[in-house]
């Protein structure tokens, strides 16, 4: 068994990135196939139905549900305004009438003869979906959205927080270890996406938020700092909706972990380039990882799609250790023994032998490495 499948994150200087931009509900698509779009352009809109306000007319009128119809002043589908009388009893000799007024603007969705309940719908809210990346619309999904495509440099993060942003990369650290200290962040970084090496300290994140930095890309972060920043402990990792004033993408993991050289080199290479980025992470079924997308000059996809390939572990591949001991270290696979071995925890696992950058040769469970792009 010379090779085995291993999960890894995509870090590449050039690939066709496709972004599906879909409305939460069916609506109207504003772009056409072949259109060149900017990240900020609206590509689809819809009206999100307003909140439903239930109102039990039978109870309010003091009649049985099947009688409500006799007293209605409006019908299903009618637009209504706040304070408008919806139903009224005839009273006695024209007096002692009971009237029910609408608590909201909106429309009458339904009135049930079984329960006497009216459902009022508040006015609709418009929802817009933007292109998120500069590119070309290659597919229109009728009433739902579009697919935008472009050749881009692409970095998948391991974890992130915060929503979609677009900004220029400002990479001014000199090595993938260098920790960005607060004193190095100033007003000139407003609206930029800044880069830190093996860690971003809490104080630096605060400073970045203060000066209006849009996003941070970092090798590592301490969980305690993340908790301080969010004000709560992340339980189930479904993120992207946080509102802390910044989007943060972690490329390697929690703790001090040097940013992968290739990732650092790419960010350095594209220093000053317009970049789209989000922190959306869903470590659950249908895993979603944060993305850093640096579009190149808009190209059509005539050069074809880059097929997703299975990353295979084999001798010669560059790997990163993703669990203790040697967590974060980079090495090369030198052997893939077939027989399972017992490691320090007494767990019997399939392993590989790797030569780390410091020259040490170590045995590592195959599950505890990931392949990194060279």
């Amino acid at each position, binding site marked *: 068994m010379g090779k085995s*499948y291993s999960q890894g994150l995509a870090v590449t200087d050039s690939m066709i990135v496709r972004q599906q931009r879909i409305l939460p509900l069916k609506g109207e698509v504003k772009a056409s196939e072949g259109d060149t779009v900017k990240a900020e352009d609206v590509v689809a809109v819809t009206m999100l139905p307003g909140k439903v306000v239930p109102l039990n007319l039978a109870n309010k009128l003091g009649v049985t549900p099947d009688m409500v119809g006799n007293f209605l002043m409006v019908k299903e589908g009618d637009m209504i305004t706040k304070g408008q009388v919806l139903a009224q009893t005839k009273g006695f000799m024209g007096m002692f009438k009971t009237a029910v007024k609408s608590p909201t603007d909106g429309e009458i969705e*339904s009135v*049930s003869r079984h329960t006497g*309940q009216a459902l009022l719908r508040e006015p609709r809210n418009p929802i817009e979906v933007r292109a998120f990346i500069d590119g070309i619309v290659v597919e229109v999904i009728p009433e739902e959205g579009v697919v935008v495509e472009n050749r881009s440099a692409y970095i998948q993060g391991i974890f992130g927080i915060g929503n979609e942003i677009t900004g220029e990369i400002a990479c001014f650290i000199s090595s993938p270890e260098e920790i960005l200290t607060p004193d190095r962040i100033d007003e000139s970084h407003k609206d930029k996406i800044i880069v830190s090496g093996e860690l971003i300290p809490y104080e630096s994140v605060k400073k970045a938020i203060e000066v209006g930095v849009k996003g941070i890309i970092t090798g590592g972060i301490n969980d305690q700092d993340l908790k301080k920043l969010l004000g709560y402990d992340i339980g189930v990792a479904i993120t992207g909706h946080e509102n802390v004033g910044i989007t943060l993408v972690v490329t390697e993991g929690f703790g001090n972990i040097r940013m992968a050289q290739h990732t650092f080199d790419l960010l350095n290479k594209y220093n000053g380039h317009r970049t789209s980025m989000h922190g959306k992470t869903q470590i659950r*079924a249908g895993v979603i990882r944060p993305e850093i997308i640096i579009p190149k000059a808009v190209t059509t996809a005539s050069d074809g799609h880059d097929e*997703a390939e299975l990353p295979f572990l084999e001798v010669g591949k560059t790997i990163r250790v993703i669990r*203790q001991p040697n967590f974060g270290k980079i090495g090369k696979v030198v052997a893939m023994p077939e027989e399972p071995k017992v490691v320090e925890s*007494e*767990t019997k696992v399939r392993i590989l032998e790797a030569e780390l950058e410091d020259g040490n040769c170590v045995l590592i469970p195959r599950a505890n490495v990931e392949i990194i792009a060279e």
Partner: protein
Amino acid sequence: MANEQLTRIIATDCGSTTTKAILIEYVDGEYRQTVRGEAPTTVEAPLNDVTKGVINAVQELEELARMKYNNPAIRFIENEEIIIPRNGDVGSDAYVSTSSAGGGLQMMVTGVVAKMTGESAERAALGAGAIVMDLIASNDQRPNHTKIERIRQLRPDMILMAGGVDGGTTKHVAELAELVAAADPKPRLGQSYRLPVIYAGNIKAVDIIEETLKDKTDLIITENIRPTLERENLGPARDKIHDLFMEHVMQQAPGYNKLMSWTRGPIDGKLAHIDIMPTPAAVGNIMKKLNEEENIEVLGVDIGGATTDVFSVFTEDRVFNRTVSANLGMSYSISNVLASTGLPNILRWVPFDIDENDLRNMIKNKMIRPTTIPAKLEELVLEQAIAKEALRLAFEQHKEFAVTLKGTQKSREISEAFEQSTSGATIVNMLTLDLLVGSGGVASHAPRRSQTVMMLIDAFLPEGVTRLGVDSIFMMPHLGVLAEISPQAAIEVFNKDCMIYMGTCVAPVGKIKPDKIALTAEIELPGGEKWKQEIPFGEVRLIPCPVDTKAKALLKPGRGLDVGAGKNQELETELYGGVVGIVLDTRGRRPFVLPVEAGARVPLLKKWMRELDIYPAEILK
């Protein structure tokens, strides 16, 4: 005699983290599990196709089978597909699979009274292998507009609506239908199909439900889940859930269409399609079979990466219950275990000092890279400490759920009037429990079985005399689905290769002072050797007693304690041996208390761990 067409079977379980494949073969007149392979599950981009992980796992199976039989001609896969039927060395006779990947089956349920029809609906959904995202009930205190918002936001795979006994009032169930219609809920996967809604409530309300929901949802009507207050009728609703799971949910998950075309085997002499089963439903199958075969009370747990499922069969009526704790698990959900239980509760099981920052980072790193395994001993100890808390919390939820039917009237004898049991009381009785079984990665793959024994005891706190078992390499799901086509193969493999009996735990219930004797045990081991000791309160003892043997025991509880025969009563019984042995645990129950101060607690933990030989000596110095 085996089914002639069934001599080699491949079974996989597509978990949220790993896809596990096993090979079952008919060898020397019996079915045995022979080889096992695994690979990461591939529902994540860029692959987005569960079959890739299946092929990788089966490929490992193929390679290991070639090595085992020294036969390079063995082949299970061709052109990235599983070969069926078998022809000599090539192919297998059947391929079956379970799945919890893709988030499993996520449901919302409704009922009129939360504790009555609501709970019945929840039980039906859980029994069918679903995760229940929320229970909406007429009496759940939330205002109607909040309920509508909640239904709209949740985006379940399907909704099960219960409510009302047959012939009762229709008003409340009609109102619930109106709320569902107003929310106009969309399914989780795919905008192109309508959300399936199963109605299993008051038969008199069917017309109203159809009128309200037929145009907005894919409405399916089935028998009332609670036709009378005294009777639950979960079967028909459960069957409908399973059908819809196959028809709708699985078809939408990445790669499942392909996987569904692969699962085939001989049924009545012909090659036929075999449904993929939700993993928890398959494990539930096995637990029920165990109860039927042995006629014992069983409590089982399957702790996975994302969820922890607890199963139980209690009482003479063999009441089966299953709960799923959707956010308690050892990889995807590990961070939520920390958030739910808090750091002190995890650290109370750890026999050494650790920096809080390091522990937090370790937990989060496991969450973001869920397939890693602890290579360092310290990290193994920490993961097992977290597992104890995940198991404990999941069991707490199970006890609250596994209760007698609420709202029933029961005629009582005068003597019973003095007992505290009421409708709605938990039926989980640890003192009468016969067998506690662990399954799932952290339980099945613990390097030492004694670690699994300690995890189960510390998390579940068995009382009196309880036999302990573990799923050897995590194959209960596979056998649960295999039982659908060959009960014989499933039971043979279960008994010979799956279930490993680890021994028996004896634990007196109650609390006394530490210097007092909590248990006097006289034990005659199978070889005739006699063992007698007076064990003070707060101790643990291990007496080796081989698997498949029994020891005769006279157990005398300390004053005020109960070992199963009543307070202060002696118990003469037989204790089953196992790969670990007989554990005498006098640390107390109801309450079980650990010292809060690390200075007092850590030496105790180390002492107990040394006694059970849990970890290598160097970490317990």
